[in-house]
């Protein structure tokens, strides 16, 4: 960690957080929240948490902000305060956050000093992973090896949670959607038919292949540098979102439509679980990759773990990409897939 950067960035973050709540305009709120995520990513990089920072850069700063824009596009920007009981809610909020803050301020006296190398968290379990990762899995990035191998079971259900979230969005907006009933959300005149900005289209067209190539690199190179399935998947999804934004929704939906996206989401999760089941079939525990040396030619147990991790990361990437696209497409069109942002 670099202590010189710590205080200015934290101050910026607190200001951003406070104003994201105070500003009386949802779009402004979303933009300030995006800046908040940018700064958060910077803070984590400075603390040495590169993988977390990468994920935040992709998820928090990139996709979340676009999702907020999509939701605000379909609803309204206006923020009104309560008609009655305003003081009560404010008082209750202040009271609850004051109690939380008081307890945590009081407890912070017992926390280990910041960045203390002898703190309990740094002395018991983590040295095991730091020293054994290379010998056991031959993957230099400890975060990737813990994520995809030592805690592989957990990551599988993490992917399942993302998948479930995609399904929930689909059920809420598309299947149970109320395209016929309910008030009209927007007058048709407010939407311009086609927005032909050739500069943005041209640049997007030139840049999209490189963004996708970079995403594939992030997925494949996650063993040796920050990155991996989640980050690469989100960037891949974001590249399709970019297409959908700069052209229209149909452009992206023609590339990967709803059926294909759902198939991809399923197959990614199945690839992950399938690698685990393969280990089970070969006679080892679920997701115990080293047994895969029997079917991978010319590979010993250590390298088999490394290769299996790559397969798992690809599964994660495919699922995350499809789900991010599905969520965006449904939010921006309110489940109709007719017009995008």
């Amino acid at each position, binding site marked *: 960690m670099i202590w010189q950067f710590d205080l200015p960035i934290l101050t910026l973050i607190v200001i951003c957080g406070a104003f994201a709540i105070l500003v009386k305009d949802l779009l402004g709120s979303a933009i300030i929240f995006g800046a908040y995520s940018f700064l958060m990513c910077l803070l984590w990089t400075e603390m040495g948490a590169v993988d977390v920072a990468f994920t935040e850069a992709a998820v928090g700063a990139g996709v979340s902000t676009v999702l907020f824009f999509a939701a605000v596009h379909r609803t309204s920007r206006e923020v009104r305060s309560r008609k009655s009981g305003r003081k009560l809610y404010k008082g209750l909020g202040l009271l609850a956050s004051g109690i939380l803050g008081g307890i945590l301020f009081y407890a912070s006296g017992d926390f280990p000093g910041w960045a203390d190398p002898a703190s309990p968290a740094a002395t018991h379990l983590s040295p095991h992973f730091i020293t054994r990762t290379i010998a056991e899995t031959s993957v230099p990035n400890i975060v990737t090896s813990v994520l995809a191998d030592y805690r592989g079971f957990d990551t599988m259900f993490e992917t399942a949670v993302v998948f479930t979230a995609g399904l929930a969005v689909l059920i809420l907006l598309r299947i149970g959607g109320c395209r016929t009933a309910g008030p009209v959300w927007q007058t048709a005149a407010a939407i311009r038919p086609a927005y032909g*900005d050739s*500069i*943005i289209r041209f*640049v997007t067209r*030139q*840049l999209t292949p*490189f963004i996708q190539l970079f995403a594939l690199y992030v997925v494949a190179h996650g063993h040796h540098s920050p990155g991996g399935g989640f980050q690469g998947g989100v960037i891949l999804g974001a590249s399709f979102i970019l297409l959908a934004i700069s052209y229209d929704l149909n452009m992206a939906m023609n590339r990967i439509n709803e059926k294909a996206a759902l198939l991809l989401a399923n197959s990614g999760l199945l690839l992950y679980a399938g690698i685990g089941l393969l280990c089970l079939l070969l006679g080892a525990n679920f997701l115990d990759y080293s047994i895969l040396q029997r079917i991978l030619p010319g590979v010993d147990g250590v390298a088999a773990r490394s290769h299996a991790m790559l397969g798992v990361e690809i599964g994660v990437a495919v699922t995350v990409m499809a789900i991010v696209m599905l969520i965006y497409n449904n939010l921006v069109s309110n489940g109709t897939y007719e017009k995008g942002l």
Partner: protein
Amino acid sequence: MIDYLTMILTATGLFFFFATTIGLLRFPDFYSRMHAAGKGDTLSSLLILSGLALYHLHDPSTANLLVAVKILFILVFIFMASPTATHAIIDAGYQSEVKPWTRADDGEEDDDLAV
């Protein structure tokens, strides 16, 4: 030698960042503010990133060369993306039918940015 070159490039870039920020704070309407932000940002990013790329050519090994090339990728990306983003924002303002600021707006009527 390369160290000094890096220092000069970075310092110039920081100066332009400073100028960008001053422009962002002081200019009267958002067209001129975006003018400062778009141009200054791109230029100072180019300067600082090329300085850093040079710094990594310090001892030219393959790994360092790769790092310098990757930094150049960022540079090229910013060089393409930043003007496009500037154009998009300005276009958004233009489509929202915001009138540009003129000297007359600074008089007693002071209704610049009136939509």
